[in-house]
């Protein structure tokens, strides 16, 4: 198991490094002339040159890359062009917010979707299965802002149950604060349910159709034991990976939801940086969410190898 994990870790580092290059290329090389991109086509050349110099864009590419990367590793993520303040401050706050929202959504969605997926698998082909599958599928593919708008309309405007923005006043208590998070979390839940339930269902169906499930039934074991001890153990393994991946995705992929609810998460941060062409902020923020995502996949790998005896114990060990 350790060799497996060591390999994955090494590969993750390589991927991270490649990611930093991609982000850097996207943010600094693609625009061609960043100063021009910021000031617009009508600004005069002198101003553009000066801006480029101020931002360090006239340095050779490799130097800029190295400066940025080494700074980043040490915690200095650069200076925001728009706010003229360290990028890391903004990223720190935004990250905390994103984590809160993600955690809240996951707490709701994980039990619901796993139960839904397993039930659908147990009653494969029947009405309840089709309903869960189609509902899950539809909710998953509908863009989040559509779901968000419907939710806002229903719960926020027509029923007036919940606040329509997620920006809670500063002095609000914990549970009051949760109310503000509820709508965006629900919107997220709608999307996540489809993916997680589908994976739980597929894993359970495979497990139910397997030879070892048949052996367990033919041994005369009661159905509850077959399900609990033999089937579920193997069926939920792939679901863990999906959950971890989705968790990682939520760290930056929620641009739309954050915008609609005006929630200061990483997605909104990146979006604002993009509209304002704040390149330093943009590249560091994107690298951050990339790092988090890769970390989550590593966590998924660790969990899977702990729970899967075929990886945990190799053939040679006894």
């Amino acid at each position, binding site marked *: 198991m350790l060799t497996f994990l060591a390999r994955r870790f090494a590969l993750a580092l390589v991927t991270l490094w490649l990611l930093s290059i991609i982000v850097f290329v996207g943010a600094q090389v*693609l625009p061609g002339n960043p100063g021009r991109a910021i000031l617009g086509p009508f600004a005069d050349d002198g101003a553009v040159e000066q801006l480029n110099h101020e931002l360090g864009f006239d340095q050779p590419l490799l130097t800029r890359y190295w400066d940025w990367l080494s700074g980043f590793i040490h915690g200095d993520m650069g200076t925001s062009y728009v706010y003229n303040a360290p990028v890391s401050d903004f990223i720190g706050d935004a990250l905390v917010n994103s984590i809160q929202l993600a955690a809240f959504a996951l707490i709701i969605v994980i039990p619901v979707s796993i139960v839904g997926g397993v039930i659908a698998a147990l009653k494969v082909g029947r009405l309840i299965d089709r309903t869960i599958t189609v509902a899950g599928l539809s909710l998953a*593919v509908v863009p989040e802002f*559509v779901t968000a708008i419907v939710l806002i309309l229903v719960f926020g405007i027509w029923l007036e149950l919940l606040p329509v923005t997620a920006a809670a006043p500063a002095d609000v208590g914990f549970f009051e604060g949760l109310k503000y998070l509820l709508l965006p979390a629900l919107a997220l839940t709608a999307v996540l349910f489809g993916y997680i339930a589908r994976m739980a269902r597929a894993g359970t169906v495979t497990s139910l159709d397997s030879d070892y499930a048949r052996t367990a039934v033919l041994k005369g074991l009661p159905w509850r034991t077959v399900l609990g001890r033999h089937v579920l153990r193997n069926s939920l393994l792939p679901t863990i990976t999906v959950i971890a991946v989705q968790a990682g995705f939520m760290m930056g*992929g929620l641009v739309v939801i954050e*915008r609609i609810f005006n929630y200061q998460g990483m997605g909104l941060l*990146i*979006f604002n940086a*993009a509209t304002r062409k704040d390149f330093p902020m943009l590249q560091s923020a994107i690298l951050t969410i990339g790092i988090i995502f890769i970390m989550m996949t590593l966590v998924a790998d660790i969990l899977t190898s702990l729970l899967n005896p075929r990886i945990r114990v190799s053939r040679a060990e006894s």
Partner: protein
Amino acid sequence: MTATTPSVEPGSALPVDTSELRRARRETFRALLRSKTFLVGLLIVGFWVFCAVFGNLIAPEDPLQTNSSVTLKAPSAEHLFGTDALGRDIFSRVLVGSRDIITVALLATILGTVAGTGLGLVMGYFRGLVDEVISRVVEAFFALPIVIVALLALTALGPSNITVIVVIGLVFTPLIARTVRSAVLSERELEYVSAAKLRGERTPYILFVEILPNVLPPVIVEFTVRLGYAIFTVATLSFLGFGIQPPTPDWGLQIAESYGLIGGGFWWTALFPALAIATLVVGVNLIADGVQSVLER
């Protein structure tokens, strides 16, 4: 077959019914048409494609025509979906808004599928260093949500329909390549590939004539699934202002312009474009689901 002593060689006596063979080919299409999900999806998408092509002809009013006297009117017989803040008829805008999003998403998906299939074939067949390096790059891309990558690229390049098509297409390429690659990995172990090598066939022949026809089913499935993602992504980018640009009556743009109005009670301005996106995406995914269950023999 009432011969008393069949005097024929085994293997040629009782024929395989040839009409059975022709029937088998049509089975695939029949199965598709039998699938309710596929049919519903086809209906929905068909409707929107029709709107995309003939939208301008069937729209009751000019979608770009502003009219300051009828701003923000609720849905009525005159304006089925009501009017927006500039007095434009929302029903017409929704009908016509299908064109750009379908075109852009379709072209982006085609680009991604063609490039991805080629890349996947090469990666899966040759393996080795090429495969390893490209796989790492693919994984790096994976770490970022599509929307973020698109934002990054479009910030740098400036948004326009063409750039959106290219960016989304390029982002899809590694995703599709991954599926094709794993299909190729299993195919290349099969003996018919060895048999081809034993005829002295060259690599391009093996890749495109022998292997490709056998990995087409997953490619088709990927195409339909990615089309759904493409529509979703284009709508999201338009909503954020990085996609299709005004004054085109794109659905994402319409929502962007109007979601702030919901608080004031003007729900129709945002709801109808949102439902349009939802139905189109669901329709495409129903088709994808139908295709997948039929092709997954």
